[in-house]
């Protein structure tokens, strides 16, 4: 980029590179960022105002898609299901923290346990979903086990009962996700000085008091990180639903994203799908905003 050594530059510690150099480095990434993130974000708004479908010349139809959306009970159902799915968030914030505290001890063989707990993270979601489908189906491992232990007389159709199916799907999300958050918390717990815990012990603080007044305040930022990431994850759940229930029974596992996918790629209504997609967008922005506000706050007791 430079032709030959330059004496004045050599001795000058504050080297000035040509102004365009940083932009050359950025250019490919910036182009991709705009094309695949920012253009779609705005393009989606336009599509949602049209009747776009494969093979038609999409026409502007104003807010018709949104009007239809708001009057569709299945849409409201899917919105509720997505909100219901947020139940995984507190589970994913708290359980991995407890496990991480367990795994943060200096004990022989603890590395093996850490590795085992992380294993589901690297297993493909399709595989996890299929395995849980074989466990929870009517003639599946769980029912057969419970019946052979005489805990159950009749098999339970876990995945066919509208009141239960979504919880099985959530269980899959949690089972696969937990290991990731354990690692995050283990990193967080490394930042807690051992002396602080020890001195709290000397002061006679019991386990709960130590957790509440020492550990949690110090790893609060990590807990907020987990909350935000697991919320995003809960809104993106798809594979588990596709494999385990296909959105059923009676649409009880049709989340917003699943609804968007069905409307767009089964009914081929791009405009309508985009309108429903905007709702995900707004929901994510709103949730992120609330959570960022929350994370800015310090933990006080």
């Amino acid at each position, binding site marked *: 980029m430079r032709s030959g050594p330059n004496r004045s530059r050599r001795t000058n510690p504050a080297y000035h590179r040509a102004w365009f150099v940083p932009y050359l480095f950025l250019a490919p990434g910036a182009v991709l960022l705009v094309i695949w993130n920012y253009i779609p974000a705005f393009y989606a708004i336009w599509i949602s105002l049209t009747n776009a479908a494969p093979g038609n010349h999409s026409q502007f139809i104003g807010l018709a898609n949104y009007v239809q959306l708001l009057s569709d009970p299945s849409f409201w159902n899917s919105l509720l299901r997505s909100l219901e799915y947020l139940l995984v968030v507190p589970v994913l914030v708290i359980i991995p923290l407890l496990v991480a505290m367990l795994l943060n001890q200096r004990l022989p063989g603890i590395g093996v346990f850490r590795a085992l707990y992380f294993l589901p993270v690297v297993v*493909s979601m399709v595989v996890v979903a299929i395995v849980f489908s074989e466990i929870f189906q009517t003639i599946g491992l769980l029912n057969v086990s419970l019946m052979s232990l005489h805990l159950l007389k009749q098999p339970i159709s876990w995945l066919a009962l509208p009141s239960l199916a979504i919880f099985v799907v959530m269980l899959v999300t949690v089972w696969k996700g937990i290991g990731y958050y354990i690692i995050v918390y283990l990193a967080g717990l490394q930042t807690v000085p051992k002396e602080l815990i020890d001195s709290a012990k000397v002061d006679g603080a019991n386990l709960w008091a130590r957790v509440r007044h020492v550990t949690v305040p110090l790893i609060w930022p990590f807990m907020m990180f987990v909350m935000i990431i697991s919320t995003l994850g809960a809104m993106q759940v798809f594979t588990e639903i596709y494999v385990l229930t296909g959105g059923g029974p009676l649409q009880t596992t049709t989340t917003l994203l699943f609804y968007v996918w069905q409307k767009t790629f089964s009914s081929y209504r791009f405009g309508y799908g985009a309108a429903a997609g905007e709702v995900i967008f707004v929901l994510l922005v709103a949730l992120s905003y609330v959570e960022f506000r929350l994370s800015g706050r310090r933990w006080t007791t």
Partner: protein
Amino acid sequence: MARSRRHFGVVLSYVVMALGAAVFVGPLIWVVSTSLMSPDQNPFLIPPQLIPHPFTVGNYAAVFKTWPFGQYLFNSLKLALLSVAGTAVISAFTAYPLARMEFAGKRVFFALVIATLVLPGEAMLVPRYLLVNFFGMVNTFWGVAVPGFFSGFGVFLMRQAYLTLPQELEDAARMDGAGELRIFGQITTPLVLPSLAALAIFTFLGSWDAFLWPLVILNSQKMYTAPLGLAYFFGYFGASWQLIAAASIIVILPVIVVFISLQRLFVSGVTGAVKG
């Protein structure tokens, strides 16, 4: 007294950890065991057998013989390598000036990058699909991979890595007459290879696991990735659980082997994303 309480605590820890391990590993062991059963054996035996009697590896052969599973795996591999290459190169180039140069618009650009972290691609499913269609990339691996080349996570991770390098390093190279591209390619980037490797592994894992986006973009069976093929044969053909189990093991084994051999990088990748 205090000692026996400590001992009790340690024993309790091990018991709880072992129970947890059973919850996380048990189902996977069951898949391995099922994959070794012939289709007329009962996979729901109580108690489950670790190694079925009699056992067979016939399912593994059948997966490749009766399904185009070799093709699916090859497709997954091609797609993952494409994603890794694209994401690594773009992340490194984009992160470098953000970490080591001053320029007008830097803060705005970085804010635009960070904003993508809270807006996952799933929220833009429809417009992205239409753009892929517009570029004529439907049913191609490019259509699946290119929208993910720019990764907010990747740029963030690499920026953190480049920030840790001392300024003297660049100054010294510059005194020796090295240009910007050479400093980037031969001096600084080699020093952040651990981060780049962590990013590569995560991208590989993400691509190997990806489902919804490939499902939308790839519509001919010969383009299917392993997860798509697996779901297809599970859902539409209702193939026997023993056969599906063998296919599942084939899908997850490469990733588990990579994970076990590169565990350290995994952990540094996760923690690198949190810090800062």
